[in-house]
């Protein structure tokens, strides 16, 4: 009988969080969602989030959007995952780990970009946890 390594507790494919030793006294750390305010140039692809290293990402939500057509592009480990123009509302949840138990992982890099029609400033709420 073969037991897959990933089925064994603490090993295999299960992500292991990197230490975040200042939590919870410092809640501005990496264990809680962070909010970035991003100036964007309409018509130009702008990087709202760039991760280098191994991360577990559990939340990607845009806010303060102009409701219009815009492109959301996501590249993970060099592979383009999303790249489409869609009609956005004033807020767009691209990834909500709480509601749908969705998490995505990158092993070396993640790039989230946006291209708007007229919107010149967006906010991105994200939770990116460094993993080992």
């Amino acid at each position, binding site marked *: 009988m073969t037991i897959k390594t990933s089925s064994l507790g603490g090993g295999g494919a299960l992500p292991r969080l990197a230490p975040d030793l200042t939590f919870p006294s410092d809640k501005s750390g990496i264990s809680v969602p962070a909010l970035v305010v991003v100036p964007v140039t309409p018509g130009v692809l702008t*990087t709202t989030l760039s991760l280098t290293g191994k991360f577990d990402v559990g939340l990607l939500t845009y806010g303060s959007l102009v409701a219009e057509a815009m492109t959301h592009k996501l590249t993970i480990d060099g592979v383009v995952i999303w790249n489409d123009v869609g009609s956005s509302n004033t807020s767009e949840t691209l990834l909500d780990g709480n509601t749908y138990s969705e998490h995505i992982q990158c092993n070396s890099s993640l790039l989230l970009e946006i291209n708007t029609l007229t919107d010149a400033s967006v906010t*991105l709420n994200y939770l990116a946890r460094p993993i080992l």
Partner: protein
Amino acid sequence: MNVILDNGTHKIESAGTLKTTPKTIRKITKRAFMRRFTQAERIAIRASVDDIVIDIHEDLKATNNVDLDLADTANALSYLVSAAILTSDRPDEILTDGTQEEV
């Protein structure tokens, strides 16, 4: 690109800037807490012969820091209002967030 985190193995960057909210201070030193009372209020507390006011004062003297979120703190201030040492608007003023100088 603005660097949000760089610990040597993991890096987070964005064209935007991280919006940070200042940490709320809800524990302040006893001295800072007493300074939130007016001189007349402090004198009235010390001069009071009310057993509960005396107990509140003694309890305060025995502590180093005051937790502004503690129910006991709010209850003590409410009692000081009922004892006519504080006016009814003072508890809210006294329980406002602390400053860096008060910790």
